[in-house]
């Protein structure tokens, strides 16, 4: 997918710039006029090089805030703050995932993943999310089909439950914003909307006939061990 997008952006850009080198212009008085010049392509080249440079400057500018944030996260982890948070949100988790036993490891992994997302730590969240999926798969009876709990977990993840958009704040700070954190409030509101829509949609759609789980005709024979 991203390959296609990249080709369209790069190829489309170069072709459009090349086409503009023809300098075609149409007016009712003069008709179609052609005024060829290489300027659009030289401008394009300049733009490409300055974009490449800007990308590295951006990444270097991020180092400080990433280090600060990951350092704090490490303290929260070591002091048990993350676990306390997990316990606090358990009542909500039980309602969201009725198919998952409270003490199942999947619950813990999902809470950790959502906590990391809440704090805006995309990269830290992914390993925890993968762990959660593996645990949820152990509860799954039809191995190639997503369970309700898996779909709910995915919807929560893809709707983003970010409360502290750390990366965005970092980029704004790197761009010399006078108040880089001013977006937190709006982000919390917008996230609230998208997450609510995600949960409502999941709960509505899972009842539709077309999304029902089809259990295979011949269940695994007794004695045959299923693979986790």
């Amino acid at each position, binding site marked *: 997918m991203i390959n296609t997008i990249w080709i369209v952006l790069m190829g489309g850009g170069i072709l459009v710039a090349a086409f503009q080198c023809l300098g075609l212009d149409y007016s009712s008085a003069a008709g179609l006029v052609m005024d060829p010049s290489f300027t659009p392509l030289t401008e394009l080249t300049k733009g490409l090089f300055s*974009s490449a440079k800007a990308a590295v400057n951006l990444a270097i500018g*991020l180092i400080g805030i990433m280090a600060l944030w990951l350092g704090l996260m490490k303290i929260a982890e070591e002091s048990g703050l993350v676990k306390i948070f997990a316990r606090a949100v358990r009542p909500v988790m039980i309602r969201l995932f009725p198919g998952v036993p409270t003490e199942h490891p999947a619950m813990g992994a999902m809470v950790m993943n959502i906590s990391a997302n809440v704090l805006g730590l995309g990269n830290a969240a992914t390993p925890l999310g993968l762990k959660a999926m593996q645990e949820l798969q152990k509860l799954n009876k039809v191995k190639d089909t997503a369970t309700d709990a898996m*779909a709910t977990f995915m919807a929560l993840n893809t709707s983003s439950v970010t409360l502290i958009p750390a990366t965005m704040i970092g980029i704004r700070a790197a761009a010399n*914003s006078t108040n880089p954190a001013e977006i937190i*409030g709006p982000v919390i509101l917008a996230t609230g909307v998208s997450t609510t829509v995600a949960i409502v949609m999941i709960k509505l759609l899972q009842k539709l006939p077309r999304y029902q789980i089809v259990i295979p005709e011949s269940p695994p024979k007794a004695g045959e061990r299923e693979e986790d």
Partner: protein
Amino acid sequence: MFAGIINGVSAVAIPLLMLAIIGHGWYKKVKVYEVFTEGAKEGFNVAVKIIPFLVAILVAIGAFRSSGALDLITGLLAPVTSLIGMPGEVIPMALMRPLSGSGALGIASELISTHGPESMIARIAAVMEGSTETTFYVLAVYFGSVGITKTRHALPAALTADLAGIIAAVVVTQMVFG
């Protein structure tokens, strides 16, 4: 009033969170300084790791933009998005967001450096970035990791949520900063 509360939350959130994390660490007798620096080491790696993605996508977007190709597409979509007060410059960001996290991040940072971090365009992009996710990537990686091929209602629900998040980002930002 509404904008005041939202600005207040934004101002207080990070200092308060830092105080809570460090305070709790101190209370639990964690060697906060040592642990902090240990975690902070990772910051460099994360920043360096994203350089190739940033270069790739920023250069591609640069090509698309400086050639005038972006103006063509934006011109086509603008009448629709202007109905909700979404500036045309943000359209590429909204299109990219579900497809590529680094791509959307690239567009957002590009908008911030072009229009300035305090512009409405940059603010909408920042809020959109913070309140939506890379749906296709997350679905592919998470479901792929356990061999799920029938994803049922996960994708339609996730895409609806993305659309809601994009519209909410525009509306809320206009309300708070407009």
